[in-house]
């Protein structure tokens, strides 16, 4: 044991920095960025060269594709909002929200906070921001490559799609926060969150409801690129998504307060 306390740098830690360090000192940030950028770079290539690819793997079967369009080049990437990208976002967020799965860690945090918002706010904000940044980086990669290989996609639709995607991913993080209060483990949390996120679009089959559901935002980037809808068409979905996300976080805070460890 030393006898003279070592001088340390000025205090820097807080619950916000904790979440930042969780991203950069673990593979979380890398995973988020890599998965979106990978698909952002891959999808325009697949779209541009799909005829050639199928000619090589088609065993002589010839398939005719329509000429690649900028909208088609980006649309394949946008599908990751409800596919691999969404799964990675939920897994990363679940790791942050399932602090109650470790009794010692839960005791450390729970006996030192004044409100569960102290825990939820930075976890939600940082994970939602990281997911949005990852998605935006992937979109920019897809945009750039589509522009080079196929042609420039409409900028307004691209920006509108980015907004819709970022809001949808924030909603996915809020759903994950709520799922973490239903079960304690990371795997269970991921399962419940993905189940809710994947099943909700089924209700959207009924058109009048579908336009209001958060899942409408996941499909919005494609519809915006195709010119099917204008961004204003999604205002109800924006409002519902924001309300549901806020409600999910509020219920999560309440359930955490009622939960014993």
């Amino acid at each position, binding site marked *: 044991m030393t006898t003279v306390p070592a001088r340390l*740098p000025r*205090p820097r830690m807080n619950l916000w920095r904790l979440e930042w360090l969780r991203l950069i000192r673990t593979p979380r940030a890398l995973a988020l960025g890599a998965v979106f950028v990978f698909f952002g770079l891959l999808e325009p290539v697949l779209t541009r060269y799909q005829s050639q690819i199928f000619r090589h793997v088609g065993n002589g079967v010839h398939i005719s594709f329509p000429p690649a369009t900028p909208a088609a080049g980006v649309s394949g990437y946008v599908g990751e909002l409800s596919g691999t990208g969404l799964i990675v976002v939920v897994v990363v967020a679940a790791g942050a929200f399932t602090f109650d799965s470790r009794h010692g860690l839960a005791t450390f945090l729970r006996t030192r906070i004044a409100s569960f918002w102290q825990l939820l706010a930075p976890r939600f904000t940082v994970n939602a921001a990281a997911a949005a940044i990852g998605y935006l980086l992937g979109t920019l990669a897809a945009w750039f490559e589509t522009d080079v290989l196929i042609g420039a996609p409409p900028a307004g639709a691209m920006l509108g799609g980015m907004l819709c995607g970022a809001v949808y991913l924030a909603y996915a993080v809020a759903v994950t926060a709520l799922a973490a209060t239903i079960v304690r483990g990371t795997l269970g949390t991921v399962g419940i969150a993905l189940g809710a996120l994947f099943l909700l679009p089924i209700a959207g089959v009924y058109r009048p409801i579908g336009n209001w559901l958060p899942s409408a935002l996941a499909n919005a980037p494609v519809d915006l690129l195709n010119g099917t809808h204008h961004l204003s068409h999604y205002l109800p979905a924006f409002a519902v998504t924001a309300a549901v996300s806020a409600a999910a976080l509020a219920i999560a805070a309440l359930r955490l307060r009622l939960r014993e460890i």
Partner: protein
Amino acid sequence: MTTNGLTKDYGGAGLFDVDLRVPRGSVYGLVGPNGAGKTTLLSLLSAVRRPDRGTISMDIGRSQVAVCPDVPEFDRWLTAAEVVDLARSLVASSMDGQAVATALEAAGIADSAGRRVGGFSRGMIQRLGLACALIGAPELLILDEPTSALDPAGRAEMLSLVAAMRGHRTVIFSSHILADVQRIADQVGILRDGRLLYQGATRDLIDTYLEPSWLVRVAGDPAPVAAAMTARPWATKVEPVGADTIRVEATTVEAGERGIPAVLAECGARQVSCEPRAADLESAFLALTGANS
């Protein structure tokens, strides 16, 4: 801190009607067999669980209570200094970085301040948990099995650290190592099957639940000494156990400790040895729990 009728029922197991009295500035040792309810009681006091019935009263705010579980856990990718600094930011944000260094130093892990927690042994994690509990100078410290993962030297350091807190802050700690409790706790509570069988001064427990006895060996014939001892009101039993040795039982430890030397002196006997029967908390614990079984 006091509790009244504190009850947490897990279908017959748990904690029942516990009336805890923890004097300010005391070191209160909580002992009991596995499943006695120690961790449940500490969880209720820490407010990470809620009682089914009963109340907990404290004359300090919750922010003045620090808790260290038996197996502290932290994010593996944080350094020890960052963990303690995080605790500082939550409970004592006005304190500076020197408070972090002091807490790490007090817990004996200042040399590892810059190391990531993922590489720590369980003993070091336990020390880190204590460092987190110490920061902010809490009025009440709740420690669940604070020495369970420590080597003998670490245990001694930890016990000394806790013992030094007596008078400055209140400490409630649980342990299954009765010798540790006896060494540092001035107050003790004994739990069994979720019920508080005894609480009070550690020394009183030992005095109350033991039949204090000593083996007194003298040079020469012990008979005159035995006769003199028998005549004393505090001596409950005196019997020879060898050619030069008698066994003396007294009403209390204190009566024997005072009376035996006095009788030896009166008789002019030459004392070779006076060996007390092991009057420790373990014996008292066994006597108490055995008497109530």
